[in-house]
């Protein structure tokens, strides 16, 4: 018995030491953590160095398509600093700026374009940009990297019949039908010129390893797909030179959580954020270190009526609803004033938009009269309509709620349904019009700054349903816009006349609710200078023009 007790006591003494061992470990961990925090507080500064800029971008996947022949997504923000086009479009002066092309001429019939190229431009790989590079790049875009047809936004080159090299620095485009080739060549997607020799050597998959072959002021130093971040570094042999103040490196990273992005902007860790909720913008305006840049965007919001389903196949009903939309309320409460009521489908600031076009205004009396005229009684609930929008989009949802309460006053019950985009679009493409929604809400933005990109894809008659989600079919309208498209390259004035005529028909037929034209609202540090928001290149910051000044 005593032996057992002695043994137990020995064991208990040892176990006491074992316990203190655990305590020792805990204390050690706490010390390490505290030391780390202490060092971090004193050693690391929150802001990146003086010559590094940071752009926080609200969507995920900073780069999706790496091959410049198929770009169609977020990478446009990166690629417009790394690659260059023949020309770029300045909407404020309504002019094309020479970039890789210094001069150009058009034949009288609008079918032949000659471009004089800039001499001494080097790709990041070291080769020189010549007319062969242009021919190769655009032909590859048109054929597709696998020869199976154009990918991404490359369909924009459809009007081109052939490309001829006249000499090293002169390239000629011959078109199948007249089109505005300058606008196409200035597009944010699929209009970039890249090195033909290296592309031939390495091929499509090499791009996806994170390589690029541009002529732009910045090169891609690294892409971290885990951090969803691109690091750009300056290209010393850039043809524009590096006189004056420029950033040496630019970091473009994805920060999908707006509260985190906002805190980083306020702390100076980030120079500019591409978008934040309007409530945060209102607070940031009071902050002297932050500046808000507002620019009319080429982005607008539509509510497509299902014109193939009762009762929206009746024009009076569609017009009545258009008169019941509380446009001012939506702009002031949903968009916090950062929008203007749309006037037709072409947004404010783009040519082809006309302030002379008619507009439906909020007028419940007119709405009621139209319904009565059509044989309905607005004083009792006479129908239910399904309003589909992109789940998670607060603007689309809140607009729906405001619309719902107004439509209730004219006897319409609006059912709001938020869905993922794929599902929403899938529903709109159902075989049977009865299976589809009644009002489809979405935004639109252009592939290149031309009214046809608003008038065509959404309203031209289609055999298969793609984006004409009002299922609108008007041959007169089709003819007008097709004529306008053909003539836009040579006679802009006439094209504009035709487009405006077409819009008059469209507004009268009323296949959509023209909600609003949006504004881009960009919060940035006041110390970031040189930034101009060009709506033709949505969300792109041209970092070569920017610098920081405290």
């Amino acid at each position, binding site marked *: 018995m005593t032996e057992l007790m002695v043994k137990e006591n020995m064991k208990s003494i040892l176990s006491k030491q074992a316990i203190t061992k655990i305590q020792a470990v805990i204390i050690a961990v706490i010390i390490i953590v505290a030391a780390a925090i202490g060092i971090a507080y004193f050693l690391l500064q929150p802001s990146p160095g003086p010559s590094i800029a940071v752009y926080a971008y609200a969507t995920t996947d900073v780069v999706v398509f790496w091959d410049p022949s198929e770009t169609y997504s977020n990478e446009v923000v990166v690629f417009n600093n790394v690659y260059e086009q023949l020309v770029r479009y300045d909407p404020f002066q309504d002019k094309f700026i020479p970039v890789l092309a210094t001069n150009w001429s058009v034949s009288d019939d609008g079918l032949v374009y000659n471009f004089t190229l800039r001499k001494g431009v080097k790709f990041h790989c070291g080769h020189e940009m010549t007319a062969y590079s242009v021919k190769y790049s655009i032909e590859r875009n048109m054929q597709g990297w696998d020869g199976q047809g154009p990918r991404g936004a490359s369909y924009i080159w459809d009007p081109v019949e052939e490309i001829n090299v006249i000499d090293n620095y002169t390239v000629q485009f011959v078109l199948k039908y007249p089109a505005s080739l300058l606008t196409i060549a200035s597009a944010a997607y699929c209009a970039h010129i890249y090195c033909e020799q290296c592309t031939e050597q390495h091929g499509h998959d090499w791009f996806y390893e994170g390589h690029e072959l541009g002529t732009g002021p910045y090169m891609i130093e690294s892409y971290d797909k885990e951090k969803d971040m691109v690091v750009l570094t300056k290209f010393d042999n850039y043809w524009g030179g590096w006189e004056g103040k420029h950033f040496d490196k630019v970091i473009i990273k994805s920060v999908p959580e707006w509260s985190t992005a906002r805190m980083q902007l306020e702390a100076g860790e980030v120079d500019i954020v591409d978008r934040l909720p309007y409530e945060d913008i209102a607070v940031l305006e009071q902050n002297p270190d932050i500046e808000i840049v507002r620019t009319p965007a080429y982005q607008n919001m539509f509510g497509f009526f299902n014109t193939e389903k009762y009762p929206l196949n009746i024009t009076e009903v569609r017009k009545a609803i258009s008169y019941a939309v509380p446009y001012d309320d939506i702009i002031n409460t949903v968009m916090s004033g950062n929008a203007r009521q749309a006037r037709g489908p072409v947004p404010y600031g783009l040519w082809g938009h006309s302030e002379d076009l008619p507009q439906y205004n909020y007028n419940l009396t007119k709405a009621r009269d139209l319904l009565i005229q059509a044989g309905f009684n607005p004083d009792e609930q006479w129908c239910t309509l399904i309003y589909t929008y992109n789940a998670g989009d607060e603007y689309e949802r809140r607009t729906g709620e405001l619309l719902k309460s107004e439509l209730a006053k004219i006897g319409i019950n609006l059912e709001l349904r938020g869905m993922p985009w*794929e599902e929403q679009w899938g529903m709109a493409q159902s075989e049977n019009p009865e299976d589809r929604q009644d009002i489809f809400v979405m935004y639109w933005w252009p592939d290149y700054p031309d009214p046809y990109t608003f008038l065509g894809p959404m309203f031209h008659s289609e055999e298969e349903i793609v984006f004409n989600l009002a299922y609108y079919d008007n041959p007169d309208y089709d003819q007008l816009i097709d004529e306008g498209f053909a003539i836009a390259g040579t006679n802009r004035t006439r094209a504009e006349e035709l487009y405006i005529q077409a819009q008059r028909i469209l507004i009268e037929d009323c296949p959509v609710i023209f909600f609003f034209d949006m504004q881009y609202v960009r919060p940035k540090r006041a110390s970031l200078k040189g930034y101009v928001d060009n709506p033709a290149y949505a969300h792109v910051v041209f970092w070569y023009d920017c610098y920081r000044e405290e």
Partner: protein
Amino acid sequence: MKLSDFIIRRALLSIIVLLGVCVITFFIARIIPANPAAMWVGAHPTQEQIERAKKELGLDKPLYIQFLIYMNKLLHGDLGVSIRTHRPVLSDILSFAPASLELVGTSIIIAVVIGIPLGVISATRKDSWVDHLSRLFSIGGVSIFTPWLGMMGQLLFFKWLGLLPVGDRISIDVSIQYPIQRITGFYLIDSLITGNFVAFQDVLVHLMLPAFVIAAYPIGLVTRMTRSTMADILEEDYIRTAKAYGIPSRAIAYRYALKNSLGPTITVLALSFAYSLVETFLIEMVFNWPGLGRYAAFSIISLDYPAIMGVAIFIALVYIVLNLIVDILQAVIDPRIRLT
């Protein structure tokens, strides 16, 4: 049953489980009306591009053939290509999984280090004010909405005190000037192995806030479980006998009672670990953490079915492996349990 027999039997059962996961997720993902071919192409696709994408993605074949093709690729280790990111799903998962594993792993360690002593103290001083306080604390930890806690943490420690970073795994300047060489994908381990102490300390600081926030739930869980199982055991006869022998109460608590009560706690902790790998996606959003949760959430929202299936299979595997380890551990700790 011998250990090797047990493992073999478990492995066979696991294959059936994985097959079930594949079938269910595959067919559910396809029932929802959607057009993955259109998403693959980009912003405003034309009809021809959509048709071509359909053929490329194999979506024009009948559903059961698509399933067989998928299973065939799976057996060769090919999880397909993500429709959203255009990268192989396997490589996506392998890059995002270590971030989640490191984060959740750290939070489990924190939970154990804090929760077990707290539970033991609670159980040994049952119904005292310490006990009541820790019970309040553990219920708070389990009930609190952790993303909110995360945001409050950011407000307090980043905005007001400037002590901790607001998010990310590593500072931008450190990642440029002292880049971590990728060996395992676990930044703490990789930076230590390569002697990159600046990065190690930076990563540790970035881990602190999110790890503690995620630890709230398992701390509550561990404290409660340890307390209740220990409280039961402390009533047992053999404990009374040990006290009668004069063995100090500390020894009784940690050497005898705790070991016996660890069993259920370990099981619950393992499940919490597996669950947290994907469930913490809101916290990953708040802290901009490039983890599996966020990847899974974005894949689900965009109906990226290869990625959804890849994540489902991966998580199923994690559960299976964890359950296996836990069962073996139980048998090791408690000789009364025999592997069956």
